[in-house]
């Protein structure tokens, strides 16, 4: 038998000290965990639950206790937010205080937490289980604190990559501005690949522009065109002078010959009438009112030379092959009157006689050419003999992942976040880094904020493909056949679209137009387009189209742009259907928005002539599902039964059938200013 070993006294003391230390640590951990914020939150939740639910609901309710988490291995996230936010998916907690309130809206239905977690949209530290460490507010401690709701749409953009993300107006506006401002000319931006942006061709600008105007334009384009697409390059007076010399030396193409035009016979009143009739304001604004597809014309008289304008109006495509402007069919006298009216009416003062071309200074021209290349003008204005400047700015891929601490903010006291950096850079590019090649766009604060918001969604993180929602741009449509030539002349595709490709100004795409409109109506309408909806200001121009041309287009539409689903509708209606349709028309209050024999509202089209205008199959298809054909339309979907659709179709296609064909309304008269 061995003697029991007894530790020497020194070790005894050590054991005692260690034992006490363990006890202390253990009890600290125990009390710390017992007293954790989330435990008291959960017990407060249980107290509230008893108040907001009836006994039956309480019996059904799941037991709340312990840490809760949503684990999303695909997204590399663990969100424990629901440990405290216990009521988010339970409508009983709408009026409960934070953090227990029901999640507002239907977001959890469209974005179930099991799939998206919380931090995918909200940011913040999902793994934390107390208020501070979850980074509910901006903090120095964490890179990605929770987003305030104002900027949350930035995160929509991470998955929703199309140009018009749903229910995210700020993001959509930011992306629209990125496209419209031509950011893609200088930066690679993910999601905007393949997009181009170009300014007008400059190869003959010396024959177009009044020299005095050019200096002012280069100095500050917005002072001439408030919503100019060209940015302000903060050019020095020397750069401006040399660019002026260079640009005015560009005279590749002479204007069309107008020597035979008798300008002393010009009738500006006739020009004014034409200006209204042709519906120029659909695309060009005057004093801020009118369309934005073309440049504002308020001071066109200060800008262009007479012979150039005459020539451009006669054949816009000769000087600017890429222009959206159509070629009207006008006589030389009409062109003369219109030119004289524009130059006379829309100018600031007496522009004076056109000065003879100044003698060219080869040194100044060479300096201007150098400036043109150095400042990246060729990124937007392609010019023969000058290499495309390419992307002068840095790529914006993953810009949101840049370290905010490494960036400059131009002013003290700004919170160092990528949003603030982008915002300040967009507002004043040269305030952060000097010298900066980036031009000033003079964005309003909200525009700069929207663009910054759209850019902050550009993260490097690779998302699983199942989360990414893209919308590839449609393949470009090029009109062909007998229609092609006319569509090019009248630039139909500047406003109308086919299969999503083309312009957006018109609300009538061509895709199924042959199944929608009566052939004869198309032909008469093209000859004399009037307003189908009087409340809409943007109207179809009066082309002065030839009868043959109108017939060609109508026939082409009627045979090519058809939709079998609409064409197969049975159009043999019974008188009972028609009678019932009339009753339904009154019952649904259609007259609230539509005119019928000069009575009713102005929201939708006048229906007086419907039978002569629309094909019955289309009326039925439209009434059954308007949103399908025109997302965002003001025509509500009444959820009509097939029988009700049929009755209304019978009634509407009877309207205007017997009456003589008259245009629905008079074409637009001269614009009143």
């Amino acid at each position: 038998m061995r003697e029991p070993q007894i530790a020497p006294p020194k070790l005894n003391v050590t054991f005692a000290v260690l034992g006490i230390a363990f006890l202390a640590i253990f009890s600290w951990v125990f009390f710390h965990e017992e007293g954790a914020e989330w435990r008291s939150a959960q017990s407060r939740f249980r107290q509230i639950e008893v108040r907001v639910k009836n006994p039956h609901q309480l019996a059904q309710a799941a037991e709340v206790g312990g840490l809760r988490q949503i684990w999303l291995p695909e997204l590399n996230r663990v969100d424990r937010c629901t440990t405290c936010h216990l009521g988010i998916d339970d409508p009983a907690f709408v009026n409960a205080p934070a953090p227990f309130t029901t999640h507002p809206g239907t977001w959890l239905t469209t974005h179930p937490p099991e799939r998206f977690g919380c931090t995918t949209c909200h940011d913040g530290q999902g793994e934390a289980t107390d208020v501070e460490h979850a980074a509910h507010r901006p903090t120095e401690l964490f890179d990605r604190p929770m987003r305030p709701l104002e900027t949350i749409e930035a995160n929509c953009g991470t998955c929703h990559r199309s140009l018009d993300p749903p229910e995210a107006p700020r993001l959509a506006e930011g992306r629209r501005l990125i496209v419209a401002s031509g950011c893609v000319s200088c930066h690679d931006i993910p999601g905007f690949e393949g997009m181009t942006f170009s300014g007008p061709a400059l190869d003959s600008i010396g024959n177009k522009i009044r020299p005095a105007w050019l200096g002012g334009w280069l100095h500050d384009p917005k002072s001439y065109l408030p919503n100019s697409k060209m940015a302000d390059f903060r050019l020095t007076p020397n750069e401006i002078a040399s660019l002026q010399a260079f640009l005015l030396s560009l005279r590749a193409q002479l204007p069309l010959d107008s020597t035979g035009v008798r300008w002393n016979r010009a009738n500006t009143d006739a020009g004014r009438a034409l200006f209204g009739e042709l519906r120029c304001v659909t695309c060009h604004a005057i004093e801020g009112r009118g369309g934005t597809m073309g440049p504002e014309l308020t001071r066109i008289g200060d800008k262009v030379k007479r012979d150039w304008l005459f020539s451009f109006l006669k054949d816009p495509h000769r000087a600017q092959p890429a222009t959206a402007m159509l070629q009207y069919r006008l006589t030389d006298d009409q062109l003369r009157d219109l030119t004289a009216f524009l130059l006379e009416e829309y100018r600031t003062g007496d522009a004076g006689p056109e000065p003879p071309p100044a003698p060219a200074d080869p040194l100044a021209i060479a300096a201007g050419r150098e400036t043109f290349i150095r400042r990246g003008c060729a990124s937007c204005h392609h010019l023969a003999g000058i290499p495309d400047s390419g992307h002068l700015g840095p790529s914006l891929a993953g810009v949101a992942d840049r370290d905010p601490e490494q960036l400059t903010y131009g002013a003290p006291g700004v919170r160092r976040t990528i949003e603030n950096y982008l915002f300040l850079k967009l507002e004043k590019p040269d305030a952060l880094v000097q010298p900066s090649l980036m031009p000033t766009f003079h964005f309003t604060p909200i525009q700069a904020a929207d663009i910054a918001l759209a850019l902050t969604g550009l993260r490097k993180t690779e998302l699983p493909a199942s989360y990414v929602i893209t919308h590839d741009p449609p393949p470009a449509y090029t009109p062909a056949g007998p229609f092609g030539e006319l569509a090019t002349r009248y630039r139909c595709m500047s406003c109308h679209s086919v299969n999503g490709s083309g312009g957006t100004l018109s609300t009538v795409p061509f895709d199924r137009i042959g199944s929608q409109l009566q052939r004869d109506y198309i032909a008469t309408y093209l000859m004399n387009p009037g307003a189908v909806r009087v409340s809409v200001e943007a109207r179809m121009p009066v082309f002065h189209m030839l009868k043959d041309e109108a017939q060609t287009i109508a026939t082409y539409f009627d045979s090519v742009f058809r939709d079998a689903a609409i064409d197969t509708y049975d159009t043999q209606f019974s008188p009972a259907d028609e009678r019932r349709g009339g009753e339904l028309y009154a019952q649904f209050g259609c007259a609230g928005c539509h005119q019928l024999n000069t009575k009713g509202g102005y929201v939708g089209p006048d229906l007086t002539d419907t039978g002569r205008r629309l094909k019955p199959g289309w009326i039925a298809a439209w009434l059954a599902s308007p949103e399908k054909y025109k997302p965002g339309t003001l025509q509500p979907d009444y959820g009509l039964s097939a029988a009700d659709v049929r009755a209304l179709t019978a009634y509407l296609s009877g309207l205007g059938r017997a009456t003589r064909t008259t245009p629905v309304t008079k074409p637009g008269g001269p614009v009143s200013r």
Partner: protein
Amino acid sequence: MKNTHGFGGFVGFVRFGGFGGFVGFVVLAAGCHRAVAPPPSDPMLDAIRAEERTAGLSYAEGQGRQLFGQYCSTCHGDEGKGDGQNASNLNPAPPDFTTSKTMKDAAYVRRVIAEGSAAVGRSPLSPPWGKSLRAQEIEYLVAYCHALASKKS
């Protein structure tokens, strides 16, 4: 005397110390004041807030305002006063939201928007949007209508 002197010395000491402490406190407070910098500014957020909260609207109400502008203001007017450009063609006319009693009831408003005014026994002139708009969009509209109705006219 000695005692008194001693006591007086003590009082003097305390007084002096108190004064010194006070001075120290003031200096410290001033120092702290300078040390506590104002919270950093958030210019991007401020720009959005200036835009969205001009009318004191929450995020949801702001979204509702945009939808209202698209779908409703032709009849109801931008501010729900019943003065849209199409209002004069309507009988009954759209009511002024700011004075209407029924507008206080969110469930009722939601019903009118989703199912149309006919669904609550009124004329059919306010159309049903429940099949055209997403549920979330209807909620935004309800929120904005509520904001309009609670506005002091």
